[in-house]
């Protein structure tokens, strides 16, 4: 058992799910790559109970389980169809993506962040991401990101390096959420750090909130909202929290925090400080 999940049962269901998928893929192998992916995704949604359980096991960021299933399947599908790239589009395509290079985009751990990079790259932006570490090469290949985004490792140097990136007209993507062990509650809590918002305010650059989601057709839909940067950082963080409220997992809602003081600058983000040993 892991976090209330019967892992053996979840793995067995996943195995069954992939058997169904394999049969479907074989039967429909003549479909064009995008159509086959869409149909597979619909099949997975119809059989969600088979796929979701296995995603719950190691989900420290409480990422939407549908996203985890999606990312896993997209990587699998890429092995079958090398030309496949997950479809990514704007929620409001009529508005277009008219943002200046050198803007700041804040989002949250969703397993879909590279879709944001893909959208920006398709609009001629060079992309820099602040992250606990570089993304897996398979994910960069999945989204056909070329050149790969520049990754700045989370540390107390990261905002100085981020300033350099902005000066070089690179657009910056920052996941602002983290988890940390809360002594009072004796559990990991999910927080939104304020540093990125303070940084955007100081840099006087356009700041966008971004929420990527997977729809029923297997498309990644990115919602962008331009934020003001005049208010104090914690107030902007509160606005972001409202923007993504429907993306948080029930029982694990975000609160506002300060990553550096909460984690003592530990680069192993996501794990936070270890809980008490029992």
């Amino acid at each position: 058992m892991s976090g209330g999940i019967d892992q053996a049962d979840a793995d067995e269901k996943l195995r069954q799910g992939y058997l169904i998928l394999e049969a479907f893929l074989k039967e429909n192998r003549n479909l064009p790559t995008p159509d086959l992916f869409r149909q597979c995704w619909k099949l997975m949604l119809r059989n969600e109970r088979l796929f979701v359980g296995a995603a719950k096991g190691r989900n420290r960021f409480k990422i939407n389980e549908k996203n985890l299933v999606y990312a896993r399947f997209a990587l699998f599908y890429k092995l079958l169809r090398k030309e496949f790239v997950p479809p990514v589009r704007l929620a409001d395509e009529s508005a277009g993506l008219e943002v200046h290079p050198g803007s700041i985009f804040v989002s949250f751990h969703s397993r879909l962040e590279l879709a944001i990079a893909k959208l920006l790259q398709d609009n001629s932006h060079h992309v820099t991401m602040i992250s606990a570490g570089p993304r897996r090469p398979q994910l960069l290949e999945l989204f056909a990101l070329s050149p790969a985004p520049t990754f700045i490792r989370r540390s107390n140097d990261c905002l100085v390096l981020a300033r350099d990136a902005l000066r070089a007209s690179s657009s910056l993507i920052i996941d602002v959420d983290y988890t940390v062990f809360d002594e009072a509650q004796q559990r990991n809590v999910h927080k939104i750090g304020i540093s990125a918002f303070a940084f955007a305010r100081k840099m006087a650059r356009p700041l966008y909130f971004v929420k990527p989601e997977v729809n029923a057709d297997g498309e990644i839909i990115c919602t962008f909202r331009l934020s003001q940067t005049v208010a104090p950082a914690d107030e902007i963080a509160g606005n972001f929290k409202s923007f993504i409220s429907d993306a948080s997992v029930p029982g694990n809602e975000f609160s506002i925090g300060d990553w550096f003081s909460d984690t003592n600058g530990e680069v192993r983000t996501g794990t936070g400080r270890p809980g008490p040993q029992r």
Partner: protein
Amino acid sequence: MDKISQAVLVVVNGILVKNNKAELTPADLAARNIDDLGFDSMDKLDLVMELEDQLDVLFANSDFLKCRTLAELVQFIGEIR
């Protein structure tokens, strides 16, 4: 104390006071490691931007991150001015 050392001391102490920490003395400049000051990412950015303002220099890239001690930082600024 030269102008650069003085500016570094003023800026660093400003951040330390904001963080409720003890101020440095001129003697500390020679020995203290920047990483031992307990600065977070925003403090480090403030350090850079305040020094740029006070000394009318531009840190064109992040080479200053290679400076381990405040003495090295003083020397680095002297070289780019």
